[in-house]
């Protein structure tokens, strides 16, 4: 791979410089966030009049942030589990079998991510409150999140199946294993890393979601993005938000790294 375009050194240099520049542009605002988490100024005055660990201390003590984090983690975890189950079922069903309506099914799976969040959010809110008369709750967030997370799992599973083919399962059955044993000993373990990668992506997607969440969350269940949203609009809370954001960015490297390692074949899949 590397060196495949050995000869075009000029191009290589140009691309490298360009990539570097864009990465700088990507990270300057993030660096600003990190810097502002130490800024003594409440509203990120520039240049910072002074530096302080005060906000980090406050953030550490903020039970609100912790509760919101806990809600976010729970929502993301449950939504991911649902997405894992539904996404891999759909993936299992749709591989190789060419049946009428296959396109419709995959369109349906893609739709929640292809339609803007505000549409998905509003649609769910309307369904829950206007049509069904259900109160918004933890579960309404989970349902909405799981819906748009299915596609990440589905895509990862599909990509894996495409690469593996069906030979391994046939080999297993040939060796005397029934359908369930084959699934348990062969299909599932081989899907494993794809599921993990899809799950991690789906977890991340849910974790940072704000639009759909705004529509489907009740006041008792504030996810971290909602907490951030509210606190940005509260006086004197904005720097704590920066602390939280900085921590999130740094922590996010871990799951991303894992997902990357586990699914080098499906790296692009969201």
């Amino acid at each position, binding site marked *: 791979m590397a060196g495949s375009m050995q000869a075009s050194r000029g191009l290589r240099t140009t691309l490298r410089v360009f990539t570097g520049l864009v990465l700088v542009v990507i990270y300057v605002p993030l660096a600003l966030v990190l810097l502002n988490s130490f800024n003594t*100024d*409440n*509203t*990120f*005055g*520039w240049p910072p009049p002074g530096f302080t660990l005060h906000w980090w201390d*406050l953030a550490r*003590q*903020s*039970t*609100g942030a912790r*509760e919101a984090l806990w809600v976010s983690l729970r929502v993301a975890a449950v939504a991911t589990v649902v997405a894992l189950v539904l996404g891999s079922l759909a993936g299992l069903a749709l591989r190789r079998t060419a049946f009428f309506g296959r396109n419709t099914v995959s369109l349906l799976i893609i739709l929640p991510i292809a339609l803007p969040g505000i549409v998905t959010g509003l649609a769910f809110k309307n369904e829950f409150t206007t049509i069904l008369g259900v109160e918004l709750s933890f579960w309404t967030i989970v349902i909405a999140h799981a819906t748009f997370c299915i596609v990440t799992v589905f895509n990862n599973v599909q990509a894996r199946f495409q690469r593996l083919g069906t030979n391994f399962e046939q080999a297993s059955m040939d060796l005397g294993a029934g359908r369930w044993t084959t699934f348990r000993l062969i299909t599932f373990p081989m899907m494993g890393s794809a599921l993990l990668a899809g799950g991690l992506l789906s977890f991340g997607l849910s974790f940072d979601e704000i639009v759909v969440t705004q529509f489907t969350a009740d*006041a*008792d269940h504030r996810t971290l993005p909602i907490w951030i949203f*509210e*606190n*940005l*609009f*509260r*006086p*004197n*809370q*904005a720097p704590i938000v920066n602390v939280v954001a900085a921590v999130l960015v740094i922590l996010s490297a871990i799951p991303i790294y894992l997902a990357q390692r586990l699914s080098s074949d499906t790296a692009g899949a969201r």
Partner: protein
Amino acid sequence: GTDSGSDDGAKAGAQQGGFTAPDIPMQQSIGDGEGEVDILAWPGYAEDGSTDKSIDWVTPFEKQTGCQANVKYFGTSDEAVQLMKTGEYDVVSASGDATLRLIAGGQVAPVNTDLLTNYADIEDFLKGQQFNSVDGQMYGVPHGWGANLLMYNTDVVKPAPTSWSAVFDDASTYAGKVTAYDSPIYIADAALYLMTHEPDLGIKDPYALDQDQLAAAVDLLKKQKENVSEYWSDYLKEVQAFKTGDSVIGTTWQVIASVAEGEGAKVAAILPEEGSTGWSDTWMVGAKAAHPNCAYEWMNWITGPEVQAQVAEYFGEAPANGKACDYTSDKTFCDTYHVTDAAYADQIHYWTTPISQCLDGRTDVTCTDYGDWTTAWTEIKG
């Protein structure tokens, strides 16, 4: 809380006097606490230390009264009304656009102010208002209020403005540096301005506009827009804009002015001569309250001077209880917020949701409702 809350939602059922309140019995005495109380509140009105450890007036309440407080926050006035209909809540912090609906709908009971030891200390200009009483009977206890002020950059804006004309007819002086509140309810600010400057339009109440009046306000705002740098909707955005100089003049809340000033921005906030729009919130007791005694305990607690001082300073509004001024950490707080200034308060037209039935009592025309205002606001922004 009320800042963005009171412009929410619904069209209150009828105007004062336009309906008879359902006959709901009023509590006559406070008995033993039931051990818990279900509170429905704007975020920020019942802090238990979870946002900031030092911001906590719920835990002391529990300790003192033995009433375990179950707080549920709501996001819009509608949500509050809907949740109150379930009958599961004992007490609610309602804004001007929810109170009448709750009263008319029989969701709240009249409040026996004799049982509330702090009631006497509540500023008189907040008592017996059209949005918290019926025929002189209080349906709640006032919590706090605030005005939408005019803020300007003292370095740039000279001479100091005294009128809203600085952001309307004279806005072009600061073209591209004017800011305004990003909500349809801001149309009332324009109406208020027209009330004084275009008397021919016959605007009596900035929340009761007929088609022509609304059109006039919309025109005014469209002209203003040419000079607007941005519309603001949250503290952070406006404080930043005034500090950087992106905005130099526009509507504000006292708390924003204070924060900006505290961070070294050269700003001042005034209540212009035309008066202003603003908000006022009230605690009300549920008609089917399961824990009425604890509910009264809570109302008493939340209107106490010390707690009032805490809430007001945290939230950034004027406390209803003037005695709170003795307890604020910032000794100038009450002056800044004109807590006991009845004349000041009189100039405020509290946010009410416009409905098609004219709130100013006209019956010969249909007024524009909040839906019309939203459409108009969309059109103004273009």
